[in-house]
């Protein structure tokens, strides 16, 4: 369904042709007392071996829920009701609970936003990393511990032996995130899901952690799904970018395309709202309005109420369609950014939507 994605240099020892992770039409809904929240509503993307995919969007757009859906860690009242999540040819949604446990932490690892609270306060850091190893590898306690100390070394913790004996409260935030990364990578996973790994850290530590993730990515040849709302982090880290809004993918393209030729008005809005160095402006650009209430999403395009280009056709939900090589966008605008023609030369999709639109107007 999507346009071809440029082939990235991949390690020789990995399967060249297959995607590592493929999401197709994934829908995760939360059935609350007030109604159904469609937190993730038809998300498609794929991640290839060794590739870094940035997933960006505002708070509540479904980024984290997408990640948790992949891990199958959605809790009641949420449920992934449709779609396929395929990891190296295996549909994760069809695995038994036990098989899924074997995937978690082993093939896919995850690190979380809050390093301050993601470590168990009652265990020494080294023991926690060793536990992660012991959960998936048949090793003795001693081997697991030496592996943990080895990982501490790799994530740049000075004096790893001693720090392995520390309790989490004795470490700083950046240090704890390093421990989390050590834990996630101790089993040498194929895919690391990083859910806002730097949001809770101050800027200098952020840079260090990103550098560390980059270095480890090269070294371990793993893919990263990087969830963030920080476009700077995306520019720094990602090969490809998925822009999400209200549970749907709005645009997907390589990182250069997203930054140089954003197509979707939402992506343009996001980019315009980044302050730029050396530019004098009284106020920052903002995207007008707020994210629609997830219990009451607008009909048609989800972004239309905030979109500067909104037009009648936007009352029909736009499909995610190719607008260039390796570039898909969920918007009716033409690839050049012009309003679509609804005359005789209209594309079949637009013509159909326009026809529907006209009927609605007539019947109203």
């Amino acid at each position, binding site marked *: 369904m999507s346009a071809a994605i440029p082939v990235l240099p991949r390690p020789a020892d990995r399967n060249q042709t297959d995607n590592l992770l493929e999401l197709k039409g994934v829908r995760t809904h939360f059935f609350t007392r007030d109604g159904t929240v469609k937190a993730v509503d038809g998300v498609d993307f794929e991640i290839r071996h060794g590739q870094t995919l940035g997933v960006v969007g505002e708070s509540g757009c479904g980024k984290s829920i997408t990640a948790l859906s992949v891990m199958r860690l959605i809790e009641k009242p949420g449920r992934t009701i449709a779609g396929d999540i395929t990891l190296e040819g295996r549909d994760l949604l069809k695995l038994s609970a036990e098989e899924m446990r074997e995937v978690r932490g082993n093939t896919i690892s995850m690190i979380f936003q809050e390093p301050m609270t993601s470590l168990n306060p009652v265990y020494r850091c080294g023991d926690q990393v060793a536990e992660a190893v012991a959960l998936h590898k048949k090793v003795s306690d001693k081997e697991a511990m030496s*592996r943990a100390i080895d990982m501490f070394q790799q994530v740049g913790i000075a004096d790893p032996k001693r720090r392995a004996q520390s*309790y989490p409260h004795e470490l*700083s935030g950046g240090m704890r995130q390093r421990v989390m990364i050590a834990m996630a990578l101790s089993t040498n996973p194929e895919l690391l899901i990083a859910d806002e790994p730097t949001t809770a850290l*101050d800027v200098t530590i952020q840079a260090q952690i990103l550098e560390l993730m980059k270095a480890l990515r090269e*070294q371990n040849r793993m893919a990263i799904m990087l969830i963030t709302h920080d476009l700077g982090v995306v520019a720094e880290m990602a090969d490809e970018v998925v822009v999400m809004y209200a549970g749907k993918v709005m645009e997907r393209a390589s990182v250069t395309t997203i930054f140089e030729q954003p197509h979707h008005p939402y992506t343009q809005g996001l980019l315009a709202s980044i302050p730029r160095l050396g530019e004098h402006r009284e106020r920052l650009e903002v995207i007008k309005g707020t994210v629609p209430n997830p219990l009451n999403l607008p009909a048609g395009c989800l972004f239309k109420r905030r979109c500067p280009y909104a037009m009648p056709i936007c009352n029909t939900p736009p499909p995610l369609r190719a607008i260039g090589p390796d570039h898909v966008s969920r918007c009716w605008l033409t690839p050049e950014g012009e309003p679509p023609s609804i005359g005789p030369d209209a594309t079949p999709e637009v013509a159909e939507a326009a026809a529907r639109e006209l009927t609605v107007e007539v019947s109203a």
Partner: protein
Amino acid sequence: MDHVADIQLPVGASTAGPTSDADEVDLTPVRTFWQLVRQRFLQHRLAVIALVIMIVLVVLAIAVPIIAGEAWRKTNLKTIFLPPSLDAPLGTDGLGRNIFARLMQALQTSLLVGTLAVAIIVFLGATIGAIAGYVGGFVDNALMRLVDIVLSIPVFFLIIMLVAFFGGGDMRVIILAIGLTGWTLAARLVRAEFLHLRETDYVQAARALGASDLRIVVRHILPSAIAPLIVAATLGIADSVVAESTLSYLGFGINPPNASLGNMLSDAQEYLFRVPILIVYPAFTLILLVLAASFIGDGLRDAFDPRQRIEK
């Protein structure tokens, strides 16, 4: 093991990055949780005294019956109501038995009943509370209604019924009866802890690492929920000892010739006006034991409370 070892640092590559000052950690020794708890406990003067008394009582209850042997049950009608002597430090009772030896035997019974009943309480309370709190939803509701039901039963009559049904005088029945009715408070406390702890980030992180539910419950949540459980257990010992003594006093518990603080009280009642001192010994021992357990429980509760300041 091969797989584990296959991440190798390329020559010259460093993932360490610059280690800034912000990443430096103060490596001065930090007091661990248990060190803090001990420190706070030691500040609680009553609790420390209670702990010393409890230790003395436990040592006596174990040592005296071993040294004195059968003295606690040997009746001798020629030596009734003797005053204290070297041989019988507290004198003899209406059947010529050595009161001190008998008292320590009774204390041993009480402590045994108390400890074993509390073991049942802790086991049941922790298991049921953990399941209710961790699983939640319908299971939680069902188990908490079970707690309500057990709480609504007049416990004492239930115990009397159980004892009457399974036969009095058997220590095991009494232990079971107390244990099976006493777990509700512990279950509620553990459930409350679990409700809170299962939502923590580190439990989520453990799940993301592929830990099983059992592992998460036992290894990641239970250690943090241990404080209220220890407090409930300590206070539970006091309750169980009182329950056992009451039962024995009423004749539903430990029956003579076996010794229990309760049946020593009821024995002494016969001579209440002739030899009133007889009732003082078991009563005082009982009060001492229960108070010690309660104060230790209080001290632990304060010691586990992180908001309690450490003075000095």
